[in-house]
């Protein structure tokens, strides 16, 4: 039994076509993990994701970003990223 249906890992900046495409492909039961340039999406006014969303803390810190409490985005580290991949039925790296 997997706790996550599909784990979507995005590493592209929010203005990259693949970032937008990934958002459009989320389904209930999925989880979104923002890494590398994708963590810049936490600075945007709205990130329209209806699924649990996490951002990689080392990548946030590198870019001078913090996740505000109102954003419903959790942070995680590399160990957390590993745990997410282990819990998911499938992983897509966008």
């Amino acid at each position, binding site marked *: 039994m997997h706790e996550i249906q599909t784990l979507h890992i995005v*590493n*592209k*900046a929010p203005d*990259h076509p693949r970032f937008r495409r990934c958002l459009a492909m989320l389904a209930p039961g999925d989880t979104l993990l923002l*890494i*590398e*340039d994708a963590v810049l999406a936490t600075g945007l006014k709205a990130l329209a994701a209806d699924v649990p969303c996490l951002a990689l803390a*080392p990548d946030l810190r590198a870019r001078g970003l913090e996740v505000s409490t109102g954003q419903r985005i959790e942070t995680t*580290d*590399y*160990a957390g*990223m*590993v*745990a997410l*991949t*282990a819990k998911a039925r499938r*992983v897509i*790296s*966008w």
Partner: protein
Amino acid sequence: MQEVTPQSYTLVITGAPYASQAPQTALEFARAARASGHRIKRVFLYGDGVQLASALTAPPSDESHWPRVWAEFLTSEGIPGIVCIASALRRGLVDENERKRHELTASNLRPPFIIAGLGEWVEAQRGDSRVLYFHGAR
């Protein structure tokens, strides 16, 4: 502490060092996976990712030397590092065999990386290991 079911991972790196963050993220992931008791079955370099296996990289001394750091990690953990032959030949990465076959002036593959075909990747894809991709950002 939560119970961890050990997993077996194949990591596919398609982003080049000094052009993308992919080799760095993949390495931190691999270290964290090992620390959590998981197994890294193999690392497969594909597309621009093959540049990670260059023996001739010489970055500034205040920057990470990704090919060296990765090679040391693979050696110390006993993980096979496989470089896709088609990607490698197009991008000027060759071992001694390919050097001879194509009559080139030198070889530049960094041990312990070895050159092999996509069959190695297919193997991972159909086996029971989880295949994870680390792409470039552009």
